[in-house]
């Protein structure tokens, strides 16, 4: 599904990623953990093609296609989805209108038929209710005046509608109370299947109580320092990143 080889990248002119190797197969859930500044978000942004992240070496391939040089929307059409850590507001553009534009763009790029307005609305309503989002939420401006929890649930709503091959969730758990965390986690669990894969980027272990990863990777100073299973996350929770850094790689 995703193959990252020796990825080097700079953000705001500074080298951040210093040789990432990662393979994610269909049906897998991977967690990327690490302290602040270790390069977690840069990795997510490099994958999605954010303009201020510059890939200097290495490659990223999604279903066999290199992402290097592709526009962000082309990566999206290939099946890459990024749930943002800080979703931005777009005042005056209703959530429904935004979702329609997003889904339409995918259908067009993949040469699928456009959904009728009625079936689209039904689809969105159904997904929104699963995430406990009230219908009037769909009429409001994109993220405008949303609470932190609503913004994150809105990201998951977009993921459910776009059905990506690879979903990258950047600190989706940050700023969520326990109920919102459960709602978001059940959304991700409902999404995850043998046909897709999930990359969870998180600082804390608590999200992993609700979404069980197949692999946990620890990112330190732009490299994957350790890889293990779920128990690695627990060890980190107990000992902290500093200990891991001391023990060397």
């Amino acid at each position: 599904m995703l193959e990252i080889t020796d990825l080097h990248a700079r953000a705001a002119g500074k080298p951040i990623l210093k040789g990432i190797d990662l393979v994610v197969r269909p049906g897998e859930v991977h967690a990327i953990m690490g302290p602040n500044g270790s390069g977690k978000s840069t990795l997510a942004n490099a994958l999605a093609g954010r303009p201020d992240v510059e890939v200097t070496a290495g490659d990223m391939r999604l279903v066999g296609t290199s992402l290097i040089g592709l526009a962000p929307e082309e990566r999206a059409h290939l099946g890459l989805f990024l749930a943002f850590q800080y979703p931005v507001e777009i005042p005056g553009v209703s959530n429904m209108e935004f979702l329609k534009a997003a889904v339409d763009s995918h259908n067009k790029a993949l040469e699928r038929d456009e959904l009728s307005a009625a079936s689209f609305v039904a689809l969105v309503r159904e997904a929104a209710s699963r995430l406990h989002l009230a219908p009037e939420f769909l009429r409001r401006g994109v993220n405008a005046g949303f609470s932190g929890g609503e913004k994150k649930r809105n990201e998951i709503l977009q993921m459910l509608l776009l059905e990506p091959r690879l979903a990258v969730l950047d600190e989706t758990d940050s700023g969520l109370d326990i109920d919102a965390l459960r709602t978001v986690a059940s959304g991700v669990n409902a999404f995850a299947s043998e046909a897709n894969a999930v990359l969870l980027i998180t600082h804390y272990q608590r999200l992993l109580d609700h979404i069980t990863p197949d692999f946990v990777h620890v990112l330190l100073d732009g490299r994957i320092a350790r890889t293990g299973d779920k128990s690695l996350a627990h060890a980190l929770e107990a000992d902290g990143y500093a200990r891991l850094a001391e023990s060397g790689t």
Partner: protein
Amino acid sequence: MAEGNDTLQERLSSEYSAGFVTDIESETLPPGLDEDTVRHISAKKEEPRWMTDWRLQAYRRWRTMHPPRWAHVQFPPIDFQAISYFSAPKGDRPKSLEEVDPEILSTYEKLGIPLHEQEALAGVERPRVAVDAVFDSVSVATTFRETLREAGVVFCSIADAVREYPELVRKYLGSVVPRADNFYAALNSAVFSDGSFVYIPKHTRCPMELSTYFRINAQNTGQFERTLIIADEGAYVSYLEGCTAPMRDENQLHAAVVELVALDDAEIKYSTVQNWFPGDAEGRGGIYNFVTKRGACLGARSKISWTQVETGSAITWKYPSVVLRGDGSTGEFYSVALTNNRQQADTGTKMLHIGRNTKSTIISKGISAGQSQNSYRGRVRMNPAATGARNYTQCDSLLIGDRCGAHTFPFIESRIPSAIVEHEATTSKVNEDQLFLCQQRGIDPEKAISMIVNGFCKEVFRQLPMEFAVEAGKLLEVSLEGAVG
């Protein structure tokens, strides 16, 4: 993020689709302006003596006046002797649509303006719109005149009105915008060529939308249209004007005057979609759009509402205003002004509260891209007698890229303590994060920008008649092409 802005920029440059020239024979006065020019225009239009004198008085006042300097726009001085003040397609004025030069009909067709009554009638779904088509200095056709006449509504060119409805014209022409109101209004009063005249009789709701479509075609010619709309007691009318011009290297002057009069309980809704040629990306050519628009709410409980979508012109200088004289009258101003490349706009409104319990609302949305300059200028005045008067002003600016400018010049004069004046202003940028969010969701940057900008303008577009709201959205999209960075 300079690199990002360049991309934004590239996406804002686009082709001006109305920029073609119609090849017809015109009769054009040689450049220059003196009393003979004024007399000549008046004679061309077979005007009565009082009209000629009215023009001459305006001309004499104009000669003593100076162009306004206070606007936040820059341009070299205009040589008023280098402009031609009259240009009309050759031949007699057509008596019916069948007589209109096919070249002219196809011009309007290309611009998407329906001049065929039958066609419009056949489309059951489409609301009917009566059109007055003004080509350079003359009105070439007015549709649905008969249908409207049955309802008692007068809709014709101002030139016809001077001859056919002299009492109404004499009573109201210059009553809202006096001849010497300002430099450009005085010039217009002296040389105005054509424009529309509307009279809605008492207690009549105009049965269809009225619209005038202004087209400048001839080179080196100014267009000086004059519009007068009178809504008698209890009458209602919705009116729309559209404007385009060919792409030319030199600047052309468009100095219009629009006067609206609303008597007791009358309502006038005036919408403008202005898409004059804006000049090229380097700022060559384009229309100087120096326009005076004012409405008088003379009657009690009357209402005048201006909605404008301004995307064209090299320079826009215009302040559609309302004089709230009648007790309980209402004035509204909804504006979207978009500037790109080297365009300059200094636009806004004046709300003069004279009567008691008068209300006004101002919603202004300015969008600047490229190296353009976009200013909102507004004046809200509460006279001492205007007890219970209220105003609400909201002024939002959206910047695309970092080489453009947005400015706000609000003036509030309240001479009465009981008046309530509220003013809100915001400035925001289309930022890289919004663009990236859209792109990550698969939406291409061009569509994303247009969605963001349309969202920003939503409050104003809601005020436009439905079919024009769709037009306005599309126009914005075209004007923004290549603005993304």
